[in-house]
């Protein structure tokens, strides 16, 4: 039983008044402070769409009316398609999906307690692993192949994804040319440009820089993606006390403004283009200004971000489910589950980074994907909530059983036991005696066995004709 796209929203960290205040403050910033746009084409697009532009300062401001008008052009529902339709994801409302994320530079290997540089081969193997983990719904390219030159990175990352899982592929992009090549590749996989428009098999991410900067290169990339019609994610990454106020409310304001800037730019370039409001907001280690990936505040910020996205009627890309631990210890368990659960209960549409990441998102780990798959299964069961109707209240069965009776033999138990209760795929529920007899395996050791089983048995890959067409038409792919 796979749980995905279930409605969250039973948890609301922000009151309606708080949402209004954040919106008002964000609109006031967009009008009074504005954003520095260092891409000429982005600046021109915004001006053409009615923004107030100070060219010398490269500053773009918008009246609240204009801002809301541009935002309202963005679709509130977006389908991200998998090569296999069963993996389609319908973002919008308060429906919840999960996925991987990155971009990690290292791989942690728990057997040796060491980390090493991530390679293209790791990316392929992680794609195969995630293809088999049901509670991870989308494959966002999680690692950076450190052995490749920059100009080969984009095509190789997306090819690794498309060739090793039939789940939707989302990814960051590094060069303008890479964007074009990757879209060309996706068209070959989809069958045609029109087929890709109908069923977007890939989506791309281009960040703004908090506070209030659209970078020259990233701005160009954003415009290129928006023009292509491929779904675009516009995340902002404000860090409390570093690139945003240290207060959570202040951080939410900066995240809202920065992500809305991307949304508005995309609509200015190509009205109606699918764009996802995104947050990578988190706290900062104020001892050394490190990005913190496992704080409870990150969960609060991204849960509240989901409410802001629902307010603007935009699909939401949240960040949660990571840990700052360097090992697969208890900390890795509680940090990943707390942030993931908060986002999901609030109805965050797509929780990215929700699997496989450790130590400030610098490092990916095979075993952690399996562990997080279990956490996400529990989280999605929490999202599903409690069904209350005559059948589940079971008055008649209760009456039949009566005081002191039991329900083990009731047909009602057998009818509902598999659907009402999450079936663990990793957690150990054996008695200590049995657990000891089976070798005293801790969570990561059991995860390791599962990694091996999956990778040894995985089959699949792009059809031969598609594969060879890509290899002949797209340059730089390392097969």
């Amino acid at each position, binding site marked *: 039983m796979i749980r995905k796209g279930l409605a969250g929203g039973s948890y609301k960290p922000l009151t309606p008044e708080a949402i209004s205040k954040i919106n008002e403050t964000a609109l006031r910033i967009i009008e009074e402070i504005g954003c520095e746009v260092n891409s000429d084409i982005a600046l021109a697009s915004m001006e053409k769409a009615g923004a107030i532009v100070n060219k010398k300062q490269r500053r773009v401001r918008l009246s609240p009316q204009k801002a809301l008008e541009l935002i309202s052009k963005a679709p509130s529902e977006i389908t991200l398609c998998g090569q296999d339709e069963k993996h389609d994801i319908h973002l919008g409302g308060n429906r919840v999906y999960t996925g991987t994320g990155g971009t990690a530079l290292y791989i942690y290997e728990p057997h040796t307690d060491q980390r090493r540089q991530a390679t293209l081969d790791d990316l392929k193997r992680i794609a195969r692993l995630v293809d088999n983990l049901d509670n991870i719904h989308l494959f966002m390219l999680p690692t950076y192949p450190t052995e490749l030159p920059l100009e080969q990175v984009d095509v190789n990352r997306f090819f690794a994804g498309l060739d090793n899982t039939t789940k939707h592929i989302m990814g960051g992009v590094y060069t303008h040319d890479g964007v074009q090549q990757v879209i060309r590749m996706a068209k070959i996989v989809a069958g045609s440009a029109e087929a890709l428009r109908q069923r977007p098999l890939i989506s791309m991410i281009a960040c703004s820089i908090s506070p209030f900067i659209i970078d020259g290169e990233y701005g160009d990339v954003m415009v290129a993606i928006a023009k292509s019609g491929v779904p675009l994610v516009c995340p902002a990454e404000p860090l409390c006390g570093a690139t945003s106020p240290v207060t959570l409310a202040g951080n939410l304001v900066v995240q809202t403004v920065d992500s809305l800037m991307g949304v508005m730019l995309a609509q200015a370039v190509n009205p109606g283009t699918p764009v996802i409001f995104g947050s990578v907001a988190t706290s900062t280690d104020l001892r050394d200004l490190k990005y913190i990936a496992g704080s409870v505040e990150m969960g609060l910020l991204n849960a509240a971000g989901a409410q802001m996205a629902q307010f603007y009627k935009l699909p939401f890309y949240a960040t949660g489910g990571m840990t700052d631990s360097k090992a697969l210890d208890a900390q890795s368990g509680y940090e990943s589950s707390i942030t993931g659960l908060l986002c999901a209960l609030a109805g965050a549409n797509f929780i990215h980074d929700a699997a496989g990441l450790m130590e400030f998102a610098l490092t990916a780990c095979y075993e952690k994907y399996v562990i997080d798959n279990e956490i996400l299964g529990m989280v999605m069961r929490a999202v599903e909530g409690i069904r209350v109707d005559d059948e589940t209240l079971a008055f008649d069965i209760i009456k039949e059983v009566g005081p*002191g009776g*039991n329900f*083990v*033999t*009731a*047909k009602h*138990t*057998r*009818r509902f*036991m598999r659907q009402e209760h999450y079936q663990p795929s990793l957690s150990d529920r054996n008695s200590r005696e049995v657990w000891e007899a089976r070798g005293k395996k801790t969570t990561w050791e059991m995860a390791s066995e599962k990694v091996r089983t999956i990778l040894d048995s995985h089959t699949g890959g792009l059809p031969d004709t598609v594969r060879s067409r890509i290899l002949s038409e797209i340059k730089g792919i390392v097969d």
Partner: protein
Amino acid sequence: MPEDIIDLIRESVIQGRVTKDDEGLDEDMVGQPGMSELIEEALISGVDAQDIINQGLTAAMKIVGKRFEAEEYYIPDMLASAEAVGVAMEILEPELTRSGVKPKGKIIIATVKGDLHDIGKNIVSILLRGAGYIVKDLGNDIETKDIVKAVKKEKPEFLGLSALLTSTMVNMEDTIKALTESGLRDKVKIVIGGAPVSEEYAESIGADGYGADGFQAVAVVEALNSGTTGNK
């Protein structure tokens, strides 16, 4: 034809369906013949009762047991299967008696004095019936003297005793002593179980076997019945 119906009987055990109105584990089984209907039909068609038992019921319960070990099946699945077997055995009993086949054995089962919960004992009862035994369930919170009385009257091959609490566990020892005093101890094999009970405890009070769970309890009874010495 006979093979077809034996296939269906096996499937009925695996699905844990007694009548055609029962749901199975798979969806959309409602309306298809269940165990009662199938056994009646098989007997009418002249299928041999021993074949039904060996190739149908016993073979199917082995599959169910394997699925339980593989953690695909839970206790309620196992119980539904055992119940289906129990119903089949009931219908087959006159036929078996007619053809001179002896039942596997009679078992008296009880939760000792002081204990109110009886889930574990009920499961064992269902599973033993599913394994082909005649089970007489005395209930829970049963006085030692009533257990002795029942053993004297029913002359069972086995006595199963269950306790849930450490504080009531001692009543098992009392029961065994009382049976010894009544001269009945040698006439019955005693198997005990329940949360606080252990292998060591069973040995210390002179029981013949110990079952850590319902399935082990059945295995122990089966072993004692075939002459081996249980799980010792």
